[in-house]
């Protein structure tokens, strides 16, 4: 289903150029800037649906490919393409592109044009990350994305925004430069920047391990894994609502995507040899960070820690595959694990995005994120309460919501790897329920605790639209995940086949 016009390029450059146009509108015509941003984001989302409808689910090959020379002296190509892993994430990105514009509609009053432009440019860059097939191009998008986020947190963030945003930038930058060394090394060895070529390129186990650690440095910070997660709570707490939403819903997924696109297929043997490391870190994230979330006083911080805990599931689902291959003949559980990880990423995108929007709704009214400042919100904001409870339930992994599907698949797969993996992972269902429901109890239900809460007004049509859309998405993935799983099935199968074959034996070394 290759269409003739470069849809991926359009999805990347339309928001970026559109963002520049929004800046050009000027500071004083805020209404026009908002409208233009909405139009561009909307158009991008509509166009991205064509990826979904035109996508051939029967093959794992790259689709909608584009291939043009970029820096010919060093064989760098402007090479784009999508497979079953990238399409859902691109759709998630463009979907949130629209929501973020709407969510910032009245809330942002300062420098509206720059705010909207930053998000549009970020959207384009993130689509670029998910569709780049050339490692250099990937890296450029991967890093360039930091700039708009840096500015968003720093310009529209809370009181400690400067600390948070510089920490965010330097942490991610430090992680990714190690990956850069790995990428350059791979180029020197293979003479190509194509990620797909690298998948087939034989490497010794020793080299693979170093490369794996390089990738790990970049992606573990991004996703983030314990113990390099500390930037995330700070960034989330200080970021404006839109920034938190994009950070949680999409940026974290780039780390997971990186593992699937680079770590597993480029260094499969190292992944197999070092899977214990990732699994240990993931389980620590799932359990320990779950406990940390329990004691948070700040709603955004709580959701941030819960994000880290949930992303632990993603890495767990990806890396238990090797243990499953060893334990079972068919290795069919491995597919369940990887698919579960992918579903978990999408679901967490919806849920965490929605939760940050919910906190944003409260924050806009009372200018506090402290749990203690609220209580009995359901009495004054019944509609809001309904949405919030749904999303927190999804966060806890209630069956029927998207949160359940991914976690259940991963836990199921983990049983085939090791009982204790599954046991520890399943603890999160309890912990997740504990911190989510306890928050709901303290904030939403009970008596109205203060005059401020008594004065609260329920959500307006704009907020209802945003939360309603997300509620539909959460429920849809929860009860009918099949289209999503179908989308990625072929790619997952191919990935698993690929990582079972040792690379160094091909090299004969």
């Amino acid at each position, binding site marked *: 289903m290759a269409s003739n016009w470069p849809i991926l390029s359009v999805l990347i450059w339309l928001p970026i150029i559109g963002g520049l146009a929004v*800046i050009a509108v000027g*500071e004083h015509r805020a209404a026009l800037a908002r409208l233009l941003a909405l139009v561009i984001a909307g158009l991008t989302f509509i166009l991205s649906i064509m990826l979904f409808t035109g996508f051939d689910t029967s093959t794992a090959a790259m689709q909608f490919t584009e291939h043009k*020379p*970029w*820096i*010919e*002296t*060093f064989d760098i190509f402007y090479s784009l393409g999508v497979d079953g892993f990238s399409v859902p994430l691109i759709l998630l990105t463009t979907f949130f592109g629209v929501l973020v514009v709407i969510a910032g509609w009245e809330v942002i009053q300062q*420098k509206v044009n*720059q705010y909207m432009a930053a998000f549009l440019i970020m959207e384009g860059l993130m689509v670029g990350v998910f569709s780049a097939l050339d490692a250099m191009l990937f*890296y*450029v*998008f991967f*890093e*360039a994305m*930091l*700039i708009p986020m*840096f*500015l968003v947190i*720093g*310009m529209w963030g809370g009181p400690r*925004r*400067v600390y948070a*945003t*510089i920490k965010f*930038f*330097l942490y991610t*930058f*430090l992680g990714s*430069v*190690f990956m*850069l*060394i790995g990428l*350059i*090394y791979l*180029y*020197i060895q293979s003479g190509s920047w194509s990620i797909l070529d690298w998948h087939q390129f034989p490497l010794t186990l020793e080299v693979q391990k170093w490369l794996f650690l390089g990738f790990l440095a970049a992606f573990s910070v991004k996703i983030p894994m314990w113990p390099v997660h500390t930037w995330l709570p700070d960034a989330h707490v200080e970021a404006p609502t839109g920034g938190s939403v994009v950070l949680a819903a999409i940026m974290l997924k780039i780390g997971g995507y990186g593992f699937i696109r680079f770590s597993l297929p480029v260094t499969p043997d190292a992944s197999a040899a070092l899977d214990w490391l990732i699994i240990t870190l993931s389980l620590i994230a799932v359990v320990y960070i779950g406990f940390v979330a329990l004691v948070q006083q700040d709603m955004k911080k709580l959701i941030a820690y819960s994000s880290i805990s949930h992303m632990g599931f993603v890495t767990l689902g990806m890396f238990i595959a090797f243990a499953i291959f060893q334990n079972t003949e068919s290795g069919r559980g491995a597919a369940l694990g990887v698919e579960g990880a992918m579903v978990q990423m999408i679901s967490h995108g919806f849920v965490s995005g929605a939760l940050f929007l919910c906190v944003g709704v409260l924050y806009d009214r009372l200018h506090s994120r402290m749990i203690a400042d609220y209580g009995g919100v359901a009495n004054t904001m019944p509609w809001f309460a309904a949405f919030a409870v749904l999303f927190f339930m999804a966060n806890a992994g209630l069956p029927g919501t998207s949160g359940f599907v991914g976690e259940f698949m991963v836990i199921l797969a983990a049983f085939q790897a090791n009982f204790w993996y599954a046991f520890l992972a399943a603890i999160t269902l309890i912990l997740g329920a504990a911190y989510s429901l306890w928050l709901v109890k303290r904030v939403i239900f009970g008596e109205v605790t203060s005059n401020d809460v008594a004065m609260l007004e329920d959500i307006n049509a704009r907020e209802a639209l945003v939360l309603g859309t997300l509620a539909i998405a959460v429920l849809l993935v929860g009860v009918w995940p099949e289209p999503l799983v179908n989308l990625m099935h072929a790619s997952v199968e191919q990935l698993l086949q690929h990582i079972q074959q040792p690379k160094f034996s091909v090299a004969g070394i």
Partner: protein
Amino acid sequence: MNNGNMLLAAPEFWVLIMACVILIVDLFLSKERRGIIHMLAMLTLVFAAIITARGDYGTGGLASETAFNGSFIRDSMGDVLKLFSYLILGLVYIYSKFCLRQFRMFRADFYTLSLFALLGVMLLISANSLVTIYLGLELISLSSYALVAYDRDSKMGSEAAMKYFVLGSMASGMLLYGMSMIYGATGTLDLQQIAAAVSELGSDNYLLIFGLVFLVVGLAFKLGVVPFHMWIPDVYQGAPVATTLFIASVPKMAAFAMAFRLLQTGLSDLQHDWSQMISILVVLSIILGNLAAIAQTNIKRMLAYSTISHMGFVLMGLLPGTASGFGAGMFYVIVYSMMSAAAFGMIILLSARGVEADKIDDFKGLNQRNSWYAAVMAMVMFSMAGVPVFVGFFAKWLVIKAALDAGLFWLAIVAVVFSVVGAFYYLRIVKLMYFDEPVSEAEIDAPVDFRAAISLNGIMMLGLGIFSSSLIAICMASFGA
């Protein structure tokens, strides 16, 4: 005696003639009409570019050719570097005209001195013998000493000029001493013949190694890399910003060319020895430059330390002694000169009514005062920090690749880790511009040519990044990589 084709040096002749013409014309101009000097200087650069770019001077081909008994060489690396020198000097002139006018220092001396320095740059770029190298170097240095002291009444300026002069002379002495040893060992001043003699003598000749040590010391002084960097922050801070702008941009390209000519053309057989020395210089410069810059509150000083680390990166390209490494170093130095010109241009832009905006706090809230200039400065800062997709990233990337090509993993790791450290102080400028409230609400105003130049300079950071392909190809092709 064969003087060869003297026309090979046509651009140098042209610049020399014009520098003298400007000197004389100035005598007949009243104070109000000094703008003519500026126009003449720009014209000089334009024609110099045309002469240089015309290429073959009737000799055909772009292969390297020598003249003046082999003491002058014209090759594609030289041509490219010269063209960029004109371009960047053009930017320098546009920025400094505005600045000199504001500070009531708009005299023709600035133009004549900097044109003589340009002549030195061109000679150094095209040098093919030790004498030409020394000649070019001293031409740059002497003009620069005078330029640093350009503001006669400034105490800091005079102090900086003295420091620069004393240390610079010492460095020249070292260099000469090294050259004399090389001459003693090889019996020739011509770089090609030196190369031939060295390969006969073998690389374990003590006299040669001794000479090499002094050459590298002299070179390091001129480049300003650790531990021979002490003069850089003081000179950058003390000199008038127009001068800092000049010495921080154009002469760096000559310094790169000098390093290449001396070390590669002349002493490539000693690569094993000089790469060891240089690797120490590189590591120290990158570490110290980036760490010391964090502590600065004066932006000229901060940029001075950042220069030190950038020069470390340039040398890192030379280190492996490979063609792609030299290409990387050349790309880096060109890009660096552009970034540096833009950064100092921004300082000039913010300076108002005779007060230099040399505190980093002067950048506070720039986004609220004028969001376009803030964007330009942000692009320059991100480019210096090496964040993609800005051109500074590609420069760092090429250099790191050259190091990895040579198997220098530890060096690459030091380089990337400290560029993250460096990112911090560049980000601090961005932070001041975007996240803080302005301290001054004064209107930012500049002549139209200034605004055009600084905008173009800023856009180049992005444009050369996205479309870096051709410049990279040109730099690589210069060394046949």
